[in-house]
């Protein structure tokens, strides 16, 4: 399932932005509603700009920017209750949200599985959104998430 070709180079930000902006906008609008989407959109891409020089390759950039957007949705939800849109309930242990722990646990997984596991179980995204993030089908996203979870279980990293 993983591409074996050389990892793609990091594109100039303009190209990355043009390719991802509509997907990010749609995702944020579904999660936050029309009233809060614009600020969140701007903040997502400003965060992406800040982090851009630290990227090591151009793989899974859609999953990467949607992860930033999803984190922003959660931050926004902490500050103010959502208006119409529902936010995922995240179990919190030791004051740390589940997604933070999950990202740490999932670090050892192959990139697609890691992204699928974190987006599904950390951010509670629907498989449709994860498929969008990964540029694959919902079925493939479901498979990636479940094989990631199996792999983590095999390593006894989660119960």
């Amino acid at each position, binding site marked *: 399932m993983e591409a074996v070709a050389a990892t793609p180079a990091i*594109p*100039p930000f303009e190209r990355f932005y043009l390719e991802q902006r509509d997907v990010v906008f*749609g995702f944020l*609008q579904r999660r936050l509603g029309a009233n809060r989407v614009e600020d969140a*959109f701007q903040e997502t891409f400003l965060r992406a700009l800040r982090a851009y*020089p630290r990227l090591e390759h151009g793989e899974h950039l859609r999953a990467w920017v949607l992860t930033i957007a999803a984190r922003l949705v959660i931050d926004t939800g902490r500050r103010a209750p959502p208006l119409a849109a529902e936010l995922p309930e995240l179990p919190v242990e030791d004051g740390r949200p589940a997604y933070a722990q999950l990202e740490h646990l999932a670090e050892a997984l192959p990139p697609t599985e890691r992204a699928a596991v974190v987006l599904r179980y950390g951010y509670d995204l629907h498989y449709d959104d994860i498929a969008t993030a990964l540029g694959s089908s919902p079925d493939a996203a479901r498979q990636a998430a479940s094989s990631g979870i199996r792999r983590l279980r095999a390593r006894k990293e989660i119960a």
Partner: protein
Amino acid sequence: MTVSAELDRRFRDAAVTAGLLDVGFDVVESPVGPLLMAATSRGLCRISFDPDPERHLDRLAREFGPRVLRSSATVDAAHRQLDEYFAGSRRGFELDVDLGVAPPFAQRVLDELAHVPFGETTTYGTLASRVGAPRAARAVGTVMNRNPLPIVLPCHRVIGSNGSLTGYGGGLHVKEHLLRLEGVLM
């Protein structure tokens, strides 16, 4: 679901204000056709007669960093001065420039080129002599050919020793237009 033009502009302006860009660029209209202009925080780094951004993005990213974004704000000042030049109300440019990683010889030639005044011409050979390499007229020609900031660094004022216009990146008709504007050609 698509991003509105207004939101798109808001993000681009915010990126400039936050100082997050390695390079900003825009495509502007001019009497010699559309121009692509780009600038870093250090100064103007590109003017091109080829206005298609796709043909510049990779090179700008390689030379100045990957955070390349279209934003009129970054080139506003330079754009305004160009407009004034084309309108005949400006004879020199007051702009910081960023030549990036230009080789030392090219740096020297471009520095010297910047001193050729409005309304005058010089030759490749003269320019070569001025940088202390009198036999390097051909190499000076190559530097002119690759000039990253035509018009502002006035390679249109450099002609052959026999008076012929030789060549120009934007086409000879552009060179003629600029020299006519400056009163060199009738």
